[in-house]
């Protein structure tokens, strides 16, 4: 890779992750540039979530090097990983909101733990975040069990953004949303990425979001990144799995229509 390190948000080199004798990620290298939206695609059970969870330090790796915003992530989840944790926000697939806290308190939580703020300012910031992700002020008082799927994802995104991280990791942000809500969510991610200057690392199966919001798409197959580049490049890829993925029946909408 010719890019200098200061332009890289995430730098993964020769990463190996396995469970027992089953190797999921096999000598994988991946660079995510600062300020881009990178989509990661791969077969179900092919290690996309494992890759994401390894980068954020939830899964131990066998070997390899991971750098996030220029600082090394330790081999075992520990202090150093926790220090870097302030630099990222994570949106889990099911939202992972704390069910005993209201939506607003969920967003306030990382602020309360990691920053010194007055209660008043904290509430203002948290409700500003909720409003930026498109929720009404009265939704802040609701508990996670009272929120719909789309709202849960929005609150989870607001919580991921609470500390104004430089990178957000999104695990299937649009799964379980209807196309309209998914489209809105895509737009939201794009807008936030622009205004806040975020780097977004997104695991997704949603072909529409890959097409509309992602600057680059990486395809994970056989434990390696087989192709990475803008969508148009992936569509031209000759790799059999990538070809099957983007040229299957469900992907026909991506193809230019023959008249």
């Amino acid at each position, binding site marked *: 890779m010719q890019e200098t390190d200061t332009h890289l948000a995430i730098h993964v080199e020769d990463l190996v992750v396995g469970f027992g004798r089953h190797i999921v990620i096999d000598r994988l290298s991946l660079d995510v540039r600062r300020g881009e939206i990178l989509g990661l695609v791969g077969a179900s059970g092919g290690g996309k979530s494992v890759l994401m969870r390894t980068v954020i330090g939830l899964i131990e790796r066998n070997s390899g090097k991971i750098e996030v915003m220029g600082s090394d992530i330790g081999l075992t989840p520990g202090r150093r990983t926790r220090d870097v944790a*302030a630099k990222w926000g994570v949106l889990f697939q099911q939202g992972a909101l704390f069910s005993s806290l209201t939506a607003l308190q969920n967003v306030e939580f990382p602020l309360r733990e990691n920053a*010194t703020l007055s209660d008043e300012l904290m509430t203002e910031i948290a*409700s500003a975040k909720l409003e930026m992700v498109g929720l009404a*002020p009265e939704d802040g008082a609701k508990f*996670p*069990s009272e929120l719909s799927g789309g709202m849960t994802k929005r609150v989870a995104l607001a919580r991921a953004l609470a*500390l104004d991280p430089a990178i957000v990791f999104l695990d299937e942000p649009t799964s379980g949303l209807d196309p309209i809500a998914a489209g809105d969510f895509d737009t939201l991610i794009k807008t936030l990425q622009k*205004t806040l200057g975020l780097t977004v690392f997104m695991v997704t199966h949603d072909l529409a979001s890959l097409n509309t919001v992602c600057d680059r798409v990486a395809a994970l197959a056989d434990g390696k990144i087989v192709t990475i580049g803008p969508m148009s490049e992936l569509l031209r890829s000759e790799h059999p799995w990538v070809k099957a993925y983007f040229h299957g029946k469900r992907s026909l909408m991506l193809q230019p229509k023959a008249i």
Partner: protein
Amino acid sequence: MSAPLLIASASGDELELRPTGSWTVVNAATLEQLSASIAPQLARARSVTVNMSGVRELDMLGAWLIERLSRHLASGGQRAHIVGAAEDYIDLIEELRQVNRRRNPDPTERNSIADRLEMLGRAALAAVLDLSAFLQMLGAICLAAVGVLRRPRSFRLTSLVYQIYRVGWQALPIVVLITFLIGAIIAQQGIFHFRKFGAEAYVVDMVGILVLRELGVLIVAIMVAGRSGSAYTAELGSMKMREEIDALSTMGLDPVDVLILPRVVALIVALPILAFVGAVAALYGGGLVAWFYGRMSPVTFIARLHEAISVTHFEVGIIKAPFMALVIGIVACSEGLRVKGSAESLGKQTTTSVVKSIFLVIVLDGLFAVFFASIGM
């Protein structure tokens, strides 16, 4: 990352503010102080210019503080001009212009007496609902049991055997240990205090009657409520949360038939057995203490026990066991089905299940005492 500063320079009515450095959440405490410290100068100025050219980093927190400043000024009829902001930051500031405009509706004032009354009413209603839920579950279980009697093949034998293994067999060690200790403690206390009257021999009567009639079954029932009742509630509750129970219903299966009946029947089968084993362990413990602490030989102990207790005492204890099991099972299962979406509700319902079933077991024991006394058992 440079420390943030806020330089204020006034000329006449004009105030120029120059924020510099990193206006990010990392410096939150400093930033909040800075913004608060310029309040008196703001009050004096008529027009305020915010020159953003010195800001190295800006995130939502910093942008919001500046927006808050300009809103504060606007509310006092002053105007703030923001100049020199980098292009990236303008978008962010513009975005924040929109937010927090609508105030949350203030909570309406509440009347404390009316509140108390409302709470009382709700609690009474909850008690009635509890009772009706209990009766409903009892009815559903009876109905399911009748259905099984009519078509015995529909009964889930595998599930029953597995549940008996869990609540009966696996509970044996702890039940034996605890009842053994209880029997030993009762005997020791009895010997210690009866010795003053020279009535040590009557310890055997006390241990025998107490353990067989009351304590054996009660202790075992309380332990089963804590051990197996809570497990039932948590299991059914998490199945409810993950829509497994709904899935069963959509397949035309009644969750009561499939999940609840085998569990309750398993308890009804296991609890008398556990109570029996527990009573034996308690007598054993009492005998050992009488031997080593009270110097009463096992032969004497057994002979006295033979005189002191009759089958009636044993019957009184063991008849109660299946009823207690039914109560524990009903409470555990109906609380499990009341779990709602959150993890907190699962915990709450599990606690309620244990507390309620222990309470009901003791109440039931009292009712039985009255009943047996009146029929002379």
